[in-house]
């Protein structure tokens, strides 16, 4: 019963957050100085019908109608999946443009984050268990890497592995002459293009998991049940993984929510460095081209996806932590 209540509370929270993000998305172009609609319309000049001009104006807040009725129209459009027309990909619709980029990002960030989480957590367990050994050297190294901006790691790995050594392609998501599809050639091309961006995300984000897990492990290692397990003569590996690490894992998972936004932010810049065809690169181009409708649409999609990922993490948390199920 209690876990249902926990889940209900979380879902309610994410619903409110989604509403807040959507409303912010509505308000930002209306509150900011300058007139984005004029910029957009000057680029449309001569290409669009009066109806489309009105649509752009309504979207960016140039309207004689009251704010409340604009807000209604905004929601109405949103619920129909209509995010407006892109300026830089005219006459493409924002939802179509985002739809083309979003899967590249989801796969790239998803896989890289998973690898980084698993590897970082395991290394953290080892670093705590064998503290005082050579593994302690990991700490300053990872601290340094976590303080380096993502894009700098991206640039350095691009220049070392891409240019100097020539191991991996340095730009794009696949060889441009290939057709997007499920052919073996395309998939292997996409894989080799994703190595450097993924490596960047892993190297930059692994330190957080490592340090968090190590510090939690140090707390659980000094608990009595670990002492008892050792005294019973259980194998060191089993005490480490089954007793100490198992109990240290939960806070690391709940830390996921906080770091996901950070990883997504870093990935946007990483995609830009590699001209990777995901939505981070699209966002960058949208800002450069003053493509306000696309910019807003991408912000909305990124936020909603982060919320969804958080909800999934919360579901895992319920499955993993018996205390939520029993007490509350």
């Amino acid at each position, binding site marked *: 019963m209690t876990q249902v209540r926990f889940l209900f509370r979380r879902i309610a*929270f*994410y619903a409110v*957050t989604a509403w*807040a*993000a959507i409303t*912010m998305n509505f308000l*930002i*172009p209306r509150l*900011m*100085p300058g007139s984005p609609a004029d910029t957009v319309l000057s680029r449309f000049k001569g290409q669009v019908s009066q109806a489309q001009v009105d649509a752009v104006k309504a979207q960016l807040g140039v309207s004689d109608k009251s704010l409340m009725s604009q807000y209604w129209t905004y929601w109405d459009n949103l619920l129909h999946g209509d995010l407006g027309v892109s300026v830089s990909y005219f006459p493409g619709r924002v939802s179509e443009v985002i739809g083309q980029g979003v899967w590249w990002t989801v796969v790239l960030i998803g896989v890289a984050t998973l690898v980084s989480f698993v590897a970082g957590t395991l290394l953290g367990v080892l670093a705590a268990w064998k*503290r*005082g050994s050579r593994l302690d050297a990991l700490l300053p190294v990872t*601290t*340094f890497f*976590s*303080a*380096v*901006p*993502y*894009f*700098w790691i991206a*640039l*350095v790995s*691009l*220049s070392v592995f891409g*240019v*100097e050594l020539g191991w991996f392609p*340095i730009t794009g998501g696949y060889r441009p002459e290939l057709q997007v599809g499920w052919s073996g050639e395309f998939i292997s091309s996409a894989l080799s293009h994703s190595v450097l961006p993924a490596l960047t995300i892993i190297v930059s984000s692994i330190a957080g998991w490592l340090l968090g897990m190590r510090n*939690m492990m*140090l*707390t659980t290692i*000094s*608990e*009595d049940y670990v*002492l*008892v397990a*050792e*005294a019973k003569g259980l194998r060191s590996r089993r005490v480490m993984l089954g007793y100490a690490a198992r109990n*240290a894992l939960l*806070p690391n998972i709940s830390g996921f*929510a*906080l770091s996901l*936004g*950070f990883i997504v*932010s870093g990935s946007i*810049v990483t995609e830009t460095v590699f001209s990777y065809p995901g939505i981070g690169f699209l*966002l*960058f181009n949208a*800002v450069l081209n*003053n493509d*306000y409708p696309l*910019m*807003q649409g*991408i*912000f909305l999609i*990124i*936020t909603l996806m*982060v*919320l969804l990922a958080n909800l999934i993490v919360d579901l895992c948390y319920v499955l993993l932590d018996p*205390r939520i199920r029993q007490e509350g």
Partner: protein
Amino acid sequence: MAATATLATATEPGGAEPPAKRRLALLRSGKALTGVLIFGSFVLLAVIGPYIAPDDPSKTGGPVLQSPSADHLLGTTQSGQDVLSQILVGARTSMLVGFVAATFATALAVLIGVTAGYLGGWADEALSMLTNIFLVIPALPLTIVLTGYLKDGGWFPIAVVISVTGWAFGARLLRAQTLSLRNRDYIKAARAVGERPWRIITVELVPNLGAIIISGFLFTFIFAILTEASLSFLGLGSLTTWSWGTTLYWAQNSSAFTTGSWWWYVPPGLCIALVGASLSLINFGADELLNPRLSPAARRAKRKERRAAAAAAAAGKDGVR
């Protein structure tokens, strides 16, 4: 959550030691001392950098794409600008954005976090909700969208936008700590003698939250420097003022990375990384001080004691408490 509870009691500030002694103890930790030294030298650089720069960072016309030499200690860019001068002048902008953004964000965090924790009830619910919303919404996309509307405004609007997107983490920590302080005897006493809430918050609570406020400030400082560098690198910052991110932007734009002009892009990235790492080191040092379990000396002692206990238990004696 037994583990977190012990951690929380261990990190509570204000032990028996007077503050001055604790401050000295922080410097006795090797990590913190290294951090303070590195960070201090960058603060110095931010102050004097523009005065000691050998050249105008924007001045073109020197030798093009020179590797480091006696004339140009860090080489030159594709248009013959002196890289060292760009780094020195850029230090001020980057550090200033970090400082201003961290100051604003910390002020917001204290205002919202402490108020929420102290008042409780509906005010707490509403403010916590606001904090959590800002925690979950990814910061950089929001910052990019906001600065997208504020192009060509210089560094100050960027610092303000960064503080708006970066205050929530500190506010959450401060709220939790305020919750644990508000029922202490001295706060109850202050309430009993009729002190107003505002005075209790500013005079009784905030000084005792010092350690957390400072650590939050340092985290936001890193966050702000990284964000400013990302924005400038993407060409979304102010391209008229020099910062480390701006230098990287031009390096990327002139394909310094594919032509191997390392002297152009390694120094600014290294500066950002060193500032970030130094602040992390200070935070680690402070953590170890406040949480004895993490300090190396305490760990060694604990391990020895545990080994002895385990050995005794294994030998069949009553070693387990």
